[in-house]
């Protein structure tokens, strides 16, 4: 079911959606978004590419092992939680603050965002490994 229009459009749109999903991830702490949504959005992008190009081409363009995302994501989330233990605080205690960067001005950082990044990776990993394993079967 190859379609030239779909193929072309998806290639262009791919990066737009990807960037949008990152934006969703980063702003998730202060506005609607976050790891779950961004993860699903990213997966949706890849699936679009997948539908347009077929599994073989997907592997050429994106030589990513999505299954590996799951443990990596879990690890990031767990480690973020473990850090406060060293300071004698409970597991998963978060910290946040504001930093002044030269170009961007004041931005906020929070360890919870790192945690959310782990969530993001897991969601992408889970969704993509399910879909690709089914598609390649």
């Amino acid at each position, binding site marked *: 079911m190859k379609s030239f229009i779909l193929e072309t459009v998806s290639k262009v749109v791919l990066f737009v959606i990807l960037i949008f999903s990152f934006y969703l991830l980063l702003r998730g702490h202060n*506005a609607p978004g976050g790891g779950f949504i961004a993860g699903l959005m990213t997966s949706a992008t890849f699936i679009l590419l997948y539908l347009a190009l077929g599994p073989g081409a997907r592997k050429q363009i994106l030589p990513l092992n999505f299954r590996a995302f799951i443990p990596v994501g879990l690890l990031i989330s767990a480690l973020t939680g473990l850090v406060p233990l060293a300071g004698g605080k409970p597991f998963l205690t978060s910290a946040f603050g504001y930093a002044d960067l030269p170009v961007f001005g004041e931005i906020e950082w929070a360890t919870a965002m790192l945690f959310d990044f782990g969530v993001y990776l897991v969601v992408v990993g*889970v969704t993509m490994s399910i879909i690709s394993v089914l598609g390649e079967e």
Partner: protein
Amino acid sequence: MEVLMALVIGFLFSGGTYLLLQRRLIQVIFGTSLISHGSLLLVLTLGRLKTGRPPVLIEGYSGPYVDPLPQALNLTAIVIGFATTAFILVLASKVYQEYETDDLEELRGVDGDE
């Protein structure tokens, strides 16, 4: 609105249950999907509806906001629901491949070791 939702929830549960009791695996999967929609609506409805603004803090506005907790619960539930649906879908397809039927009546008593 809450009463209307209660009726919708009741309907979704009722229909989902009816499908669960059917003989075909695919119907069972449909049934679980309907029931999970019902549960999501149930959780949100129990936190009351439309009582304030969306739960994103706005400077200079102290409230009311709608209850954020049911939303958080539902958000994880939706994603988990997706993963479990994927799992039972794949399970069902494997069962069909193995036994060449998805009729639960015919599947009864079959054993992987046979």
